[in-house]
């Protein structure tokens, strides 16, 4: 029976090919546009690390001196080196890392200098963000303390420098210093790159990772947002009044997260008592999705665009409904013939719809109902033989 209806439908569609093509095209356009924007939305607003997004927290605080504190100002995203180091020393979270982005030049196998993006961070970075390793492993916490000359490089850079072979133990020449490669990353791309939104929100991960302490020791250049309250000869010095370090903490349970927030409040209170400032101060820990939301990673344009595309799809569907309606009403006489002649009364009611022209969805529903009736009735419905002309 389904085959028969399909045949009827195809015949009907063939009667007016141009109209059929236009209807199909309209729906295709609507679906195409809305799927495109929905994909964009999905990529932009997606959870970059679904397995852990509720356990990773961006720590930010306002510890500006009184003359720079203004009520209602946004909380700075980054920490001073002093605060970051204090939090790291206390180590209250399951994992924690202070970090910054940077850039440096390495020399390729062909002797060509390459400018690469770098991340200066701690050993905890790798387990915290589930970073996969192809060869070797991340450096150990002791390396952080010892300012060890070690580095982890990306798979891409390994390809460029060492032809994709296991390069653990090889050295990387950086401005007259050499770094020992201890690990090579597997494929790892976070989009949005939530751990550092200040250096491009989308894109590849960095190519070289090394301990923050080593980078500071070697005075490698950093990039990203840097805000200072006063002038400092070296904005990266331990006591410089500058905020530039990103701080992430992993807290595996909600209880630990609550305890950590309390710990941050206590930290602020301690700073206040120490006479660093007299304003209330502020410290907060935002999980990944809260953080992305606070930073407005999805541009408002994209949201509007999505709504517009959905509206367009609605127009296309309405349009097709209208055209189908017109088409079927025009042949209402012929359709009258089609009322089934023998069936249970409920089936007849369903088989003689006032809205024969009501579109595909209704047709599908009707078919389902009919199939149900078919199962319940003992004799088959007589099939009439007239065809559409």
């Amino acid at each position, binding site marked *: 029976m389904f085959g028969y209806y399909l045949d009827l439908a195809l015949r009907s569609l063939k009667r007016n090919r141009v*109209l059929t093509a*236009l209807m199909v095209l*309209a729906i295709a*356009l*609507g679906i195409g*546009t809305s799927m*495109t924007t929905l994909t964009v939305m999905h990529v932009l607003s997606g959870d970059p690390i679904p397995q852990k997004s509720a356990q990773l927290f961006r720590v930010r605080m306002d510890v500006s001196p009184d*003359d*720079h504190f*203004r009520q209602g100002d946004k909380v700075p995203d980054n920490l001073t080196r002093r605060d970051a180091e204090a939090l790291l020393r206390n180590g209250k979270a399951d994992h924690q890392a202070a970090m910054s982005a940077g*850039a*440096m*030049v390495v020399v390729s196998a062909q002797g060509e*200098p*390459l*400018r690469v993006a770098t991340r200066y961070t701690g050993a905890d970075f790798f387990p915290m963000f589930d970073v996969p390793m192809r060869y070797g492993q991340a450096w150990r916490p002791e390396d952080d303390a010892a300012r060890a000359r070690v580095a982890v490089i990306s798979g891409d850079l390994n390809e460029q420098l060492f032809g994709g072979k296991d390069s653990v133990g090889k050295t990387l020449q950086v*401005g007259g210093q050499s770094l020992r490669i201890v690990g090579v990353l597997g494929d790892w791309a976070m989009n949005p790159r939530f751990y550092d939104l200040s250096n491009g929100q989308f894109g590849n991960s960095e190519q070289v990772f090394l301990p923050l302490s080593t980078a500071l020791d070697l005075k490698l250049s950093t990039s990203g947002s840097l*805000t*200072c*309250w*006063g*002038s*400092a*000869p070296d904005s990266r010095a331990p006591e410089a009044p500058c905020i530039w370090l990103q701080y992430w903490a992993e807290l595996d349970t909600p209880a630990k997260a609550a305890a950590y927030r309390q710990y941050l409040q206590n930290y602020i209170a301690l700073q206040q008592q120490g006479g660093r400032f007299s304003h209330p101060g502020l410290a907060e820990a935002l999980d990944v999705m809260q953080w992305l939301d606070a930073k*407005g990673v999805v*541009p*408002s*344009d994209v*949201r*509007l*665009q999505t*709504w*517009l*595309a959905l*509206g*367009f799809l*609605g*127009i*296309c569907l*309405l*349009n097709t*409904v*209208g*055209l189908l*309606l*017109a*088409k079927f*009403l*025009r042949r209402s006489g012929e359709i009258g013939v089609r009322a089934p002649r023998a069936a249970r009364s409920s089936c007849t009611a369903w088989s003689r719809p006032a809205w024969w022209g009501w579109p595909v969805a209704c047709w599908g529903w009707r078919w389902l109902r009919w199939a149900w009736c078919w199962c319940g009735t003992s004799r088959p419905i007589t099939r009439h033989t007239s065809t559409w002309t």
Partner: protein
Amino acid sequence: MQIKPVLVALKKHRLATLLIALEIALACAVLCNAVFMIASRLSAMQLVSGVDESSLGFIQLGGFDPKSAHDLNARVVAGLGAIPGVQAVRVINSVPFGPAAGAFGVTLDQAGKQFRGVPELYLGAPGTPEALGLKLVAGRMPGAEDYQTVLEGYLPANSNVLVTRVFAEHLWPGEDALGKTFWTGRNQFRVIGVVAQLSVQQYDEEGERGAQWTVFVPVQPGPQLAGTYLVRADPRELDRVMVDARTALAKIAPDAVVDHQQSDTLPALRTRFFQADRALTGMLVGVIVSLLGVTALGIVGLASFWVAQRRKQIGIRRAIGATRGDILRYFQTENFLIVTFGIALGMLLAFVLNALLMKFYELPHLPLYYLPLGAIALWVLGQLAVLGPALRAARVPPVVATRTA
């Protein structure tokens, strides 16, 4: 033309009328918002940089030893200057549409109480404002004595600076900015000149910084200002000059790496900066065109159907004295009424959509004048779409009345 009989007829086709009206309503809502978005993108892309973009290029080097900064600057300025066609090479920290190079919070007093926002600073070597092509509207350009050597940090302790007219007005509304001072931390700036325009490096519409919030600080190049250069050449030769410059740099500065992404002509940097806006505009134009097309198609389809259905009635009307014009106007009036219902609903929808988006996503307000513009566009579209079927209806001969259906 009487409207009443048209309304009576429409009442008999409530479903079809409703469908078309709904389609028009949605089209109106989408059209108004999409056109508004396009307009705001286009106006963003009009950002005036205030410099002679077509004559300028930017070069960024990295990976050199900061200790050799003086030497590197001297080599690059001399080396690039020797390329035929180059009119000037100046050490500058960045250019409009170039990399973000430095934003500083400023206050009107030394104590740091009267905070006035975070402008971007341009640092440049002698001759930079002239090479950029900045237009002075008050005061004077920095003289040779204003370009100081920076001994510590990033900025001189006291400098004589240029500000844009917009930023001067922001700092001192309604006052003459010349001779006034402002501070960033312990560094003092004194305004010696006001320029017409100089846009920030990476303008962010959603940020708090205005597009023209910039300060030009004259300094001598040194370790704090090295590796970034402004190249000026004749617009016709600029592309060639930039290609030559990159080739020449391999010889002039083998110790440094050219940042190929940032080193380009200003027109190219500008194009790249607005790439996303252009893509969005293109997509919206595509949506609008297909939306209008689809809507017109729906109207044509339904109108043709009605014409076919009413052939006999049209014949009767013609037989009892209606002119072709009457028939034509009947269908036009009918279409006008349906579109009007749709527009009334659509305006409401457009406004609700905008208000909702504004509430949740901080979008700008849809200006009211977009609504009548959208309405006119849809009326015109409706009339154009119905014209074909209506003309076919007008051609129905009176003799049809005598035939059975």
